[in-house]
């Protein structure tokens, strides 16, 4: 006795589904990107250097807003460049959101520094900014390192 055509169709569909299901690996996120990792490391170094200078030589005119324009510009260029690169990567929403938040914080820090009457960030400003940026970079690196470990495991 042969099976009903509908039963045959359903069985065939189930087998194909099982085949596809069991033959495919699930990928929910983008792959690790070495260029993004490297660029963020450079940005983090530059930001850390900026804060160390403020902690070592507080109140120095070398740290005035006018003398910090190169720093802000350099950071912004790297931020925008890495953002454009990450736009092109699939399943990358989390990294893109992180980069947008970093870019926004660079802009906000720039605005804060710019509106200081003497052009200098205070000790409290530096403490708060350093905390925020260290937290932000650490969070991004945690995610990047997890992607890197996942790539190695695959």
């Amino acid at each position: 006795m042969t099976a009903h055509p509908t039963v045959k169709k359903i069985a065939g569909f189930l087998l194909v589904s099982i085949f596809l299901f069991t033959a495919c690996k699930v990928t929910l996120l983008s792959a690790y990107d070495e260029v993004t990792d490297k660029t963020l490391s450079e940005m983090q170094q530059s930001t850390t250097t900026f804060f160390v200078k403020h902690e070592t030589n507080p109140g120095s005119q070398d740290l005035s807003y006018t003398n910090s324009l190169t720093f802000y510009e350099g950071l912004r260029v790297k931020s925008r460049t890495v953002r454009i690169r990450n736009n092109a990567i699939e399943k990358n929403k989390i990294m893109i959101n992180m980069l947008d938040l970093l870019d926004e914080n660079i802009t906000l820090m720039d605005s804060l520094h710019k509106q200081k009457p003497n052009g200098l960030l205070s000790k409290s400003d530096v403490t708060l900014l350093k905390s925020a940026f260290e937290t932000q970079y650490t969070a991004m690196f945690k995610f990047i390192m997890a992607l890197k470990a996942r790539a190695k495991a695959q």
Partner: protein
Amino acid sequence: MALNVSALAKDMLNAAKPVLQNFWKEAKPYVEKESKAFVQNLAMIAKLKIEGKITKEEALLHIQIQKNSYRTVLLAVEGLGLIAVEGALNAAIGVISTTVNKAIGWNLL
């Protein structure tokens, strides 16, 4: 050979569970630490404003910077969670593949 759906589902759960438990075991202390730091920074900003050491505009800028930083932490946790879910799914699928291969009698992988 018929597939034992209940047994398969149990195997999938057993494969997935350690991966997800490990994720929260690592993520929880990190979230707790950063949440505490966020609140402490907000308190510092409030104190500076009350003492007149920063203007309202400066306080608002600082608050937004701290909020963006904390949002990044939560995004990282979301990302780590997705990696864990992906790992758990693939571990569970791996378990099913072995059992289904045996049941069907041909190698699908």
